[in-house]
């Protein structure tokens, strides 16, 4: 494991080798492209949701929670605005974090997936996971999404078509990945970059403060527990994939969204750019807002964290009058807020599904309104 100052992949470094001179321009362009792509993919998603809603059979009196063409019509615009006008995005762009590229790749991946082009999605997925490892987990939602079009028959594991499709796609993906790795090898004639990049991501050696949970924890944790906790935390990042697949198997879109959001919270070096990205996707699911439970609380938390981060950082690092704990507290609050947000959306989604199936107001025999709860 050889973490150096730069722990980017050889490719991106090589590309920067050309772009470094006019980087401001590059980053602005990248962000705008991302916005456009998000717009396109959101449009596609809206259509997708609409058709899905049409072709399904609903229970009675669910009219009020159904999607409406008007809202769907304005949805892509909202998404684009939410990304481009988000102060976090602007901040990321100003800070020139390579996270912008990462977001671009994710957006491309989504677009490609929407367009059911196996090759492209595989390429972008490979690129994304080549850049920062974690997007590997997006493999499953992508497969599910594509399978809905490509595979005939029900999406059951017994279905041989599905199996061979999964196989095919995985092979393509791995192929792209290995080609990328080989390219970077041919770039350096050494494979040092693999530990340098992925080792750096997995075994968290750089403890520079960020908005995540890892840095202060691994600053303070006792030496002999370090490895154990690293395993636990990294596991925690990936562990949600399986249950999510089981529960959301026929809503790959939402699955993908939740996955991206979770990565943004639990990855080892999270940054505001990731948060901005999945916040930008929220408008797609604005029809869930009815079932959100503590949106206001989350709103306040996120806002105050946004204010507290720079201030506590300044107090700790520049005026030296506060210590690390203050900033750490802010990161804790931020993570909690995000977790609440995501779990809320998940809850709302399932609740809506439930109501779509059984109707919005379920009555008992004597006409009292039944209440719904998780059991």
């Amino acid at each position: 494991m050889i973490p150096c100052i730069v722990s980017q992949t050889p490719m991106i470094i090589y590309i920067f080798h050309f772009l470094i001179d006019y980087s401001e321009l590059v980053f602005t362009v990248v962000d705008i492209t991302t916005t456009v792509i998000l717009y396109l993919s959101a449009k596609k998603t809206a259509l997708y949701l609409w058709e899905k809603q049409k072709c399904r059979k609903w229970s009675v009196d669910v009219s009020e929670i159904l999607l409406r063409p008007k809202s769907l019509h304005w949805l892509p615009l909202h998404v684009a605005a939410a990304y481009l006008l988000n102060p976090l995005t602007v901040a990321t762009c100003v800070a020139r974090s390579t996270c912008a590229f990462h977001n671009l790749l994710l957006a491309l991946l989504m677009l490609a997936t929407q367009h059911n082009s196996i090759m492209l999605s595989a390429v972008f997925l490979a690129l994304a996971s080549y850049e920062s490892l974690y997007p590997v987990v997006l493999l499953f939602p992508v497969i599910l999404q594509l399978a809905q079009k490509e595979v005939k028959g029900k999406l059951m594991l017994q279905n041989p078509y599905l199996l061979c499709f999964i196989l095919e796609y995985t092979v393509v993906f791995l192929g792209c990945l290995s080609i990328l790795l080989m390219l970077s090898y041919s770039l350096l004639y050494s494979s040092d970059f693999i530990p340098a990049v992925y080792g750096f991501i997995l075994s968290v050696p750089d403890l520079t403060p960020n908005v995540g949970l890892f840095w202060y924890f691994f600053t303070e944790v006792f030496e002999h527990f370090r490895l154990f906790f690293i395993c636990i935390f990294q596991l925690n990042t990936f562990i949600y994939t399986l249950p999510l697949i089981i529960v959301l198997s026929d809503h790959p879109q939402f699955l993908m969204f939740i996955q991206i959001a979770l990565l943004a919270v639990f990855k080892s070096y999270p940054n505001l750019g990731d948060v901005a990205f999945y916040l930008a996707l929220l408008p797609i699911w604005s029809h869930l807002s009815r079932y959100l439970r503590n949106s206001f609380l989350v709103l306040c938390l996120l806002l105050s964290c946004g204010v507290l981060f720079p201030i506590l950082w300044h107090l700790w690092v520049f005026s030296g009058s506060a210590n690390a704990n203050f900033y750490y507290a802010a990161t804790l609050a931020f993570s909690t807020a995000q977790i609440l947000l995501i779990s809320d959306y998940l809850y709302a989604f399932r609740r809506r599904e439930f109501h779509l199936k059984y109707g919005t107001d379920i009555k008992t025999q004597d006409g009292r309104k039944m209440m719904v709860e998780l059991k």
Partner: protein
Amino acid sequence: MGLLSDPQSRERVLLFLIRHNSKLCILCYALGLVWFLLLPLPPLSAPTYISENALLPGLVKREFVGGPQALSLSREFAANKALVGGLPVEWLNKTMTSLGLEVHTQTFAVDLPFPDEINERYHVRGTNVQGVVRARRAASTEALVLHVPFLPEANDQAMGLALSLAAHFRKQVYWAKDLIVLVTEHDLLGIQAWLGAYHGINLTSLGVRSSELGGYCGALQAAITLQLSSDVATSIDLQLHGPNGLLPNLDLPNLVHHLCLHAKVLCTVQELLPPQEDNAWWQSMHIMLLQALGQASTKPASEHGLFLRHRVEALGLKAINSHRQEKASLEKLGRLLEGVFRSLNNLLERFHQSFFFYLLPSLQSYVSIGNYAPCAAAILVVLFLCAVELWAKLNPEKERRTREAAASNPASIPWLSVIGSIVIAHGLGIALYLGPLVAHQRAANYFDLPEDEAVSLTALGIGVSSLSLPHRGSTPQGWIWLKLFALLELGMLLLALDLLNFPLAFMLAIPTVPAAVVSQPSHKTASIALLLVASPAVISLMGLAMKTELNPHGPTSGQLGGFIGLFLRWLQCLSQSILEHQSLGTNLYPLFTLGLFPCWLQLWHVALWKE
């Protein structure tokens, strides 16, 4: 999570909040106020102590005997000052060299955005002189600063004392940190230039052109700014706060206070005698309020302040010569300083043991952040409660509205309707921030005013004109969104301020919070009245009035009493604060214009909301 997940209990809590909201708000507000009033009393204000072991105050034998030398040097300095009619650089060079110091000079030049009428300066040219006592056996990785600001008509004795102290220190072998004797011109501008050059950065928006500095001594650990204009002193006043309410680590004032007790020199803060037994509460409250006002004004208490901004613990010592009996000679003061510097020299780590956030009811007791945070919290809670209520009021609306929204055009998506006024408010804030600097030139020529008055009048003009904007919302419920936004913004603002500069935050919160909570189109008059009281102008005016009231010396001569005088002084302060923001980076003006004013304007819109 139980509360958050179980729908029933959440409903119940929400209902409870909404039902008793007004009571709760009043309760919290009152709690905050009362708590603040109780702060000077024992359980909340603990007795001070020195928490850094390494200081070892008062163990050393004081050997300074340079009293007469100090006197003669100060006389000589005064003579040369009169001769040159400014800072006698050559003389200082010669003297310091003859005393064995390593001398470096730095010339600097600053151009203020507009002439400063109070100190009569516009294009400032100056020189800083810096004499270094190299620690013999240390690798000059750390340094202490003894800073003597050059004042045209005062501070000669300070210069003499500093020089003779340096001469004494030069002979000693026990230094682990270099000692810099620093003489700066043009009070804050000079020290700003020096610190900027020393750290190779510029923290202000003004370009300071300064010559290359020599004689670097590594990291500055602590600085003492000395003001002494008489041959004897009756008391020493500690000047604590720097720009933007920064405070030195509590150990530093404690150290000096401890040594003063040791040397039997009276030591005060805010130039007020330590509280006596009878009505101790009011006296300590008085001191505390003065400190709070000082911090809230974001103006450094003395030249030491800028050290604090560069992460150097610093303290201003101002010797006062009143009619009291027991006087301290220069020699005694010199020994006091010697003690201070030897203690600082003993320090190994940087100051980090004691508090950075505190209020001083007196030098014997302090209020730590943990004890005053509750008032801030209580008052912020008021805003939060109010916001929750609004949100709850909005929620049933929201669903109906979304349905309509789907049907009708998107422009009536509820919160879109208020974006206009929000943008306008902030735009006006920016205009108010930039306006004076851009427009003062023209205004001055047009009305032929002195420029700084032109500046403040422009600001005032922009501010007032912004009140007469159309307050027309398209939707009946729009004002709720607007108010919600304003409340959140105000809350965030105050939250941020509470961390940076508590006194300022508190003084803003006291008037603005009730106004913000009350303001509604339904009861206009009350909300308008409150809002007027809470308007930035009135707040700052009140602050100024309070300051003059509490000022121990009473209103200084040459100021008109009464409201007119107050108003004129307020105008001055306005231009001053703009100037200081430009030259020293104090953030009162941007805070008021970019932060408070837009919030207030939105609330104003809310109050005058028309269908």
